């Protein structure tokens, strides 16, 4: 049996917020096989963002363990997470917040290459300028974008910059947290197409977090539905859509606004 890419057991994460305790994640088990495209859907407060932050090693679980390619990452100190940092990259919801307004686009995109942790993991001698040119082309941005600042770009273009940054260290896994929900409808489709193409062309494993079931359905072949810190349903995307196994999933699907032309 081959080792899955990710294996998570009994993940629980509690936050203390003021005087109250919030249970963001409640005993979640999950496995992700390489090359799959997993969508995680749920409403606000369902714990979906918390889950991917744990997977990306940006936060530690209160209890439970995560293995990445057979190595347990939950017990490793930050300085030994270099392999994870190089292999897993994230794209966030709002490019206005995920791009440092005071850095040039070129510096933003090559930042992952500068990190000492990541640099050690990369095959020797990655030329920053070459890689910058490659990823700019991959996300369909003008080659001279590197010298400009984020505010000179439109919302859709900024999200492309964020994707380019994620691609820079040639990751195996791309985690996208609500990648299109801050974008206008007219550019949403473009970014979705770009993600689809990139994942196919570079053989990436994709994890998408979204509140929008249609987005997940379009991008992913596997689906996990979360509610109140638990995964309530998991499976093949088409199966879950056509034959939802729980009432909650059924309610979610029924609530998707559909175009009503009858007046």
């Amino acid at each position, binding site marked *: 049996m081959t080792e899955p890419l990710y294996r998570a057991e009994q993940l629980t994460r509690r936050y203390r917020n003021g005087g109250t305790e919030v249970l963001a994640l409640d005993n979640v088990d999950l496995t992700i096989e390489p090359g799959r495209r997993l969508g995680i859907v749920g*409403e*606000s407060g369902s714990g979906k963002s918390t889950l991917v932050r744990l997977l990306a090693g940006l936060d530690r679980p209160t209890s439970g363990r995560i293995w990445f390619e057979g190595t347990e990452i939950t017990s490793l100190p930050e300085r030994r997470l270099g392999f994870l940092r190089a292999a897993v990259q994230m794209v966030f919801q709002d490019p206005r917040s995920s791009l440092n307004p005071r850095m040039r686009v070129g510096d933003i995109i090559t930042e992952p290459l500068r990190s000492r942790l990541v640099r050690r993991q990369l095959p020797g001698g990655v030329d920053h300028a070459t890689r910058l040119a490659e990823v700019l082309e991959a996300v369909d941005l003008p080659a001279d974008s590197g010298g400009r600042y984020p*505010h*000179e*770009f*439109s919302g859709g273009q900024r999200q492309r910059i964020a994707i380019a940054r994620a691609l820079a260290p040639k990751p195996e896994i791309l985690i996208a947290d609500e990648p299109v929900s801050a974008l*206008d*409808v*007219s*550019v*949403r*489709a*473009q970014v*979705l*197409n770009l993600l*689809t193409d990139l994942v196919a062309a570079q053989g990436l494993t994709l994890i998408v977090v979204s*509140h*929008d*079931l*249609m*987005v997940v*359905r*379009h*991008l*992913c*072949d596997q689906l996990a539905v979360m509610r109140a810190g638990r995964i309530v349903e998991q499976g093949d*995307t*088409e199966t879950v859509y056509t034959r939802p196994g729980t009432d909650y999933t059924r*309610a*979610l699907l*029924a*609530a*998707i*606004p*559909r*175009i*009503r*032309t*009858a*007046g």
Partner: protein
Amino acid sequence: MSLLEVRDLRVSFGRRKIEAVRGVDFEIAEGQRLGVIGESGSGKTVTALALMGLLPDNATATGSVRLRGNEIIGAPEVALARLRGDAVSMVFQEPMTALDPTMRVGRQVAEVLRLHQGAESGPARDRVVSMLAEVGLTDPTRIADAYPHQLSGGQRQRVVLAMALINSPDLVVCDEPTTALDVTVQALVLQKLDEVLTASGAACLFISHDLAVVSQVCDRVLVMLDGEVVEAGTVAELFTDATHPYTRGLVATARLELTRPGQRLPTVEDFYAPEARLGERA
């Protein structure tokens, strides 16, 4: 005569007079519901604020907005204040911030009643509680005594809905009222909105970026682009014979479920890509 008549409405901002709305015309008849769709920066929210007379003071509006024959543009503040909350009311996008955090929500709803009808506190309270029940809030007496932070987003948005409808206005302006809500809550709020509008017979101007959401509430739709109305018609008409390429693009992208997963999605640019739109919109 229509309930609302908007003629050549133009709104510009700042000293440099940047036009956000550039000559908009439309009408709303009694009880009619009109949807407005467009992207951020298309001028849809500015249009809504103009009809409420709530534009920020660095904005200049010209043209004409008549509500039951009363001109809104240039009307004195006191006259506008009398109309707002009574003849025309508004529901905003962000339920988390739309209510005063320091005041119990029951009082906030009652305020609308007292402001326009001078109601006594006893009967006002009863009206408030029954209005809260009408927008689908269970246990309305408890909700009336709660502070906003003690309510969920969906509950707050229904409180705002109750405030907007308690005086039986002629027109309710809704600006992206469900965008900040979860899908299941959105469905519920849309359903309640539909119910209370039907019950009161009020007309509605419903703004959204989401064609599907608009189609839940409205029969007729305006499409706005860069401050202008580029298309008007029923939802069905937009699908079958849209005249403007931007509308066709919008319609195509609005229906994700028509594309097989993994296949290329149609984009607006496939239909409409004037040079001017590229790069200029930061």
